[in-house]
């Protein structure tokens, strides 16, 4: 089992969050006496691996671990603890397990714990299946999961789709609850800024929760540890996740998929012997010192940095071997450096593997298409590019990424083209995607042009494509997309510059812009100390955006440390996947 991410360097004490989650997990396991089996929602195993080591399960008398599936639990153990997200499909499977046990006349104790909370809908399903009476129901109130010293996520996969397509705003309530829980631990955040409809909704629910809880718990009586909260609705900036991320971490995610802070790789890539087929799980977080250094760089620079490091190691090595009268401390110093060798090998392997993708002409031409679309100046060229990728039936999601870029940067497509592209998609990928297209339209990702296009104004006003951009020695966040500065992060910059509500530019973007001060709170203690800003992306955040924030925080004159929180760590691929509604594939 992988090590838990090291949280010691976090700007606020995030370890406390994880410790509480560990304690709660122990408590729910202990709530059922005796030996037990744990049946886990398969989607939870990743997030839980970030909370606790598997040894914790043993310590709390868990004999065996299973995953919720259609098959019955193969265990004679009398005590069964389920830990699941509140989803109807999971309830039906649990109900099926219990009914099977009943038919076999097995008397067992069942407890179902919902993460983060029980819901009426789930209980209704269990009731209709006739098993509710057999079950002890509980909650595992784990909201934010610490992914790294500056990254928290709720890991709610469908947040954006549910909010914008289904109108189901449950995730916003969860987010507000999560923030409330943070405030219980770190004090009430005195200053809130936000942009977008969902941001305003979260802020409303949040203030309502504060009103409902007039007696603040003792922790919030002290000075707040988080000075500012910035809420950004993903819908305000769909462009960024549609573009290919070009940071080291972003590219790993685009090509190899980072899940719950780790990537699974073929053993061959990691230089293993032929014959082993079991995938190697590589944790990717700041506990890996070299990764901490590399993750936020533009990939173009990563090779160089690795080469320099290798050269300097080689130099050290030759110094040690060639010189006779080395002092012991010099040798010790050298050996210490050797400890970095596994990390070097690991990242050289990964970087090399990535470059097999990045040098492909198809990738390069894709980047240039993206660039053209973001520039938004030559509609016809863009139109043809998108038409071509549809007609040659490139994978649907990568096609949709471009189509959405085209739509957003033109404030929607002209009616004729809108219908044309939709028809081409249905013809090329099947009529089952009618629902997918509806979803995209409902959520505003792919729309008909109805108003004047203001992308150029936004682009210029926010300097989304700055004239000068260097990937090697960046002076601006645009390096994360080699020339495009993520809109969302520009918004964060605006928020920090105190011209939030006045800015005309912000009005061009969808949704309300708001700001709110907590009157009861005193201002930050001193000017010299660093401040902490919690930036929350509602609907998901990409690794490239996180890198951009880290870059900002390291700039001279920036007094904020950032903590990024989100409903889900995303890239264009997995974000759009939630919008794909293929009725022929369900059940």
């Amino acid at each position: 089992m992988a090590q838990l991410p090291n949280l010691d360097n976090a700007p606020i004490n995030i370890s406390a969050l994880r410790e509480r989650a560990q304690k709660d997990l122990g408590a729910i396991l202990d709530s059922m006496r005796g030996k037990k089996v744990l049946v886990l929602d398969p989607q939870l195993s990743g997030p839980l691996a970030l909370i606790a080591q598997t040894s914790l399960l043993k310590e709390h008398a868990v004999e065996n671990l299973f995953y919720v599936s259609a098959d019955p639990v193969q265990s004679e153990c009398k005590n069964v603890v389920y830990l699941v997200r509140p989803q109807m499909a999971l309830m039906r499977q649990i109900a099926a397990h219990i009914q099977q046990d009943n038919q076999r006349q097995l008397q067992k104790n069942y407890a179902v714990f919902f993460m983060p909370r029980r819901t009426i809908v789930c209980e209704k399903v269990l009731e209709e299946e006739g098993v509710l009476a057999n079950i002890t129901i509980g909650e595992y109130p784990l909201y934010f999961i610490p992914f790294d010293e500056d990254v928290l996520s709720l890991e709610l996969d469908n947040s954006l789709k549910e909010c914008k397509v289904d109108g189901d705003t449950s995730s916003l309530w969860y987010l507000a609850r999560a923030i409330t829980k943070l405030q219980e631990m770190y004090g009430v955040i005195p200053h809130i800024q936000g942009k977008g409809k969902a941001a305003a909704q979260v802020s409303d629910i949040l203030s309502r929760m504060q009103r409902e809880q007039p007696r603040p718990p003792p922790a919030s009586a002290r000075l707040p540890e988080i000075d500012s909260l910035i809420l950004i609705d993903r819908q305000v900036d769909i462009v960024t996740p549609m573009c290919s991320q070009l940071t080291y971490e972003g590219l790993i995610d685009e090509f190899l998929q980072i899940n719950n802070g780790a990537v699974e790789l073929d053993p061959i890539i990691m230089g293993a012997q032929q014959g082993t087929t079991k995938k190697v799980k590589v944790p990717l977080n700041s506990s890996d010192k070299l990764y901490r250094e590399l993750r936020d760089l533009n990939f173009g620079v990563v090779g160089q940095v690795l080469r320099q490091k290798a050269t300097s190691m080689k130099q050290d090595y030759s110094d040690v071997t060639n010189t006779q009268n080395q002092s012991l401390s010099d040798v010790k110093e050298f050996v210490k450096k050797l400890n970095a060798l596994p990390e070097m090998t690991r990242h050289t392997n990964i970087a090399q593997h990535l470059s097999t993708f990045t040098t492909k002409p198809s990738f390069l031409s894709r980047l240039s298409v993206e660039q053209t679309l973001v520039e938004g100046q030559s509609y016809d060229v863009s139109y043809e590019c998108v038409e071509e990728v549809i007609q040659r039936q490139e994978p649907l999601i990568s096609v949709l990424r471009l189509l959405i870029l085209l739509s957003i940067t033109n404030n929607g497509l002209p009616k004729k083209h809108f219908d044309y592209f939709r028809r081409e998609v249905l013809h090329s990928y099947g009529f089952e995607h009618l629902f997918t297209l509806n979803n995209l339209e409902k959520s505003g990702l792919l729309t008909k042009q109805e108003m004047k296009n203001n992308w150029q104004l936004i682009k210029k006003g926010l300097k989304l494509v700055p004239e000068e951009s260097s990937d090697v020695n960046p002076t601006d966040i645009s390096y994360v997309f080699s020339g495009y500065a993520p809109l969302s992060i520009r918004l964060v910059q605006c928020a920090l510059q105190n011209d939030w509500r006045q800015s005309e530019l912000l009005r061009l973007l969808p949704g309300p812009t708001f700001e709110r001060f907590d009157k009861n709170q005193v201002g930050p203690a001193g000017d010299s100390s660093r401040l902490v800003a919690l930036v929350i992306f509602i609907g998901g955040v990409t690794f490239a955006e996180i890198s951009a924030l880290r870059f900002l925080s390291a700039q001279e004159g920036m007094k904020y440390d950032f903590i990024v929180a989100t409903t889900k760590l995303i890239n264009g691929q997995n974000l759009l996947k939630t919008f794909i509604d293929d009725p022929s594939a369900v059940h």
Partner: protein
Amino acid sequence: MAISIAAEWNELYNRFYRKQEIYTMCWKNVDLSRHKVACARFGGPIAIIRDESKMVQLRAESARAKLLIFSSSGKLLSSVAWDRPGGRLISMGWTDEESLLCVMHDGTVFQYNYRGELSTSQLSLGQECWDQGVADCVIWGTGLVVLTEKNQLFSIPDLENPQAIKLADPHLEEPPHCFAVIEPQYTLSGSLEVLIAVGSTVLMVDADSVQDQTVSIGPLQKMTLSPNGNFLACFSHDGRLLVVTTDFSKTLSEFTTESALPPEQLVWCGVDSVLLYWEEMLLMVGPYGDFVKYPYDEPVVLIPECDGVRVLSNMYMEFLQRVPDSTVSIFKIGSTSPAAMLYDALDHFDKRSAKADENIRLIHDSLADAVEDCIDAAGQEYDIAQQRTLLRAAAYGRAFCRKFHRDRFQDMCRTLRVLNAVRQFEIGIPLSIQQFKELTAPVLIARLVNSHRHLLALRISEYLDLSKEVVLLHWSCEKIKAASDVPDPALLDVLVEKLKLCPGISYATVAADAHQNGRQKLAALLLDYEPRASEQVPLLTSMGEEERALVKAIESGDTDLVYFSIFHNWRQQTVTEFFRIIQGKPLARDLFISYARQNEPEVLKKFYMSIGQPQGAAEVLLRESWGYSQNLEQRSGSALQGPRLKLIEQASELYAHTKEHTFESKATEEQAKLLKLQQELEIATGQPIFVDSSVSDTIRTCISLGNHRTAQRIRVEFKVPDKRFYWLKVFALATAKQWDALEKFSKEKKPPIGFKPFVEACIEEGATEEALKYVIKLSDPHERAEAYARMGMVKEAAEAASQAKDSELLGRLKSTFGQNTAAGALFDTLRDRLSLTGGG
């Protein structure tokens, strides 16, 4: 003064006892000897009722008995006519919740509160007990045991959960001499045990068994368990008082009285001494046979407390207790303890005598202990002047004492204020400090509240920094009950004014109470003050205001609450009404749709039609149609797609209802058309490979099967754009390796997509030779360079790149072919040449 205090103490072996008068009873003409009396512990109320088993002379009183309830100071709290059925009243007793239990001869148990109000929940010991008739009864804080006239035992061991049980049959011919109860909390088994004295022995009876303890100290005529449940005091027929352990294994002390008659009352005073009461005589016996006699010329009732015994007579309420150690150390005659010196020092100080300083110096080392003792002793006093003197002594000493914990002093002052407040005879709760600690402040507050002392309870809560919620909620509920004639708005104002004293108080609780009292309007008004939607919504729902509940749930943003409300509305309303309710509420509507889509498609279809959104219904139909495609495996070549087609066509029609959905309508029309065509193809080819593939895929499949006519037909029927058709055909032919056909196709006309796709298709199939045919046709040298590069033809690539004057491309080519140094050099030369030309 100090001398007089200790002079009133009685010494019993090595310890002192004192009996203080707490109240002069303010009742009039109460003669305890004529009444059954039940006194609650912890200074609780006293209930009396005329004892019908005694011959009494009625004076100026009604012939009908009355149940009277007094405070410990004799203040009448309530008086009700006693008219309960069930035969004779056998026994009365107070529970920990301060409700009065009256056990009747037929086994019925009536419960009264302080105010003489009969509780609606009536307990009964069951039919068998009813048949036998109750002979005797023991009531303790949480339960009761009765002995029937047939010598059977029945019990309600836990009043919280009032289940009557029958204990094991002890098979007695005669009624036992006496019996005692060991409460469940003191037994090893954790369940109730009853000791009954029979013959010369004692039987231990529980629910399942009867055990003879085989003792021969009996016959025992009276037994009482000590307050800690460890010892039993027994009075034997020959006038001996024995103290034994409850398992009878050890006799701890034995005392011979001069009376063969058993005492009327036998109670423990703390755990060190036992009180025996005969008419006109109270005898206290200590552990080593020492005793004290207190003569009484009037009847008394002994009320055991945790730290002593209250003695109630017609005139007085007294408290008999062992003198606390701190008090002894200060007031014992001739005491030179540091605390006594400190107390003395204060006296000198008040007299402006220098001896005060001398005293302080003498005890300097143990000053902190002395201060502590004075504070503690202050807490033990009922007399306020005495409390004050002791506290002043403590304060005086503390001034010379560096490291004394100052909170201790403040805590004591605060506790004493509370105690003095409740001891006032108007309130009449004579708690000692130990009793207060055992009872705890919240319970005291709850008791005050129950006796309608809301203001005092509120003040005490405030003073001790406890939540005022309990007091205010109780007050509000009582207020609502009492103010049935006050109009809603006025009552609301009165309530809200008080409730707002406590932020976060549950308005919903008060509203629920108003609702129960039939004040619907008031309940609704109160609910508007409740900030917690999670409290509002369920209550509104139970009040039948489902729609308003839904509105509140939506306002909260808590989707779970919204679902709660949706389901309730769904169940309670007619379908039409339900649809109307959710239609106007976007969040509720959307959540309903999400749920129904998965679980109730038929209801959803109806909903869409009822709100005039046929496109929604169309979507439901389409989803249903896709359900058929799941049985793909069972499909044998040419399954008919009839039902599926029908659904799709219906959906298409529904889409056509609204202008905005023309696209969807046409798309579904095409979908149906495609499905029909695919079905024909499957029948014609006998291959189940067409259904459920896209238009493009169908064309590709046809071409790769060589069925160009059908491909052409689809192209026409589905108006496939030229460009797309070219892409499809080029790749289909290449995949099928039909190179001649591909070449022929390339020559049909100038391809609308250029020759690049031809090159790509060939390269992808690994046919370099074929690819080269088309590379030369590429007009753009840049594209040519890329194509050559992909095929590994370095030299040609480099040439084309230099033709394209693209140094970036050259650089990239170099990095791709960098390992080959010869090629690398080639690129460098070319690039140099380029930059020269570019520069020149």
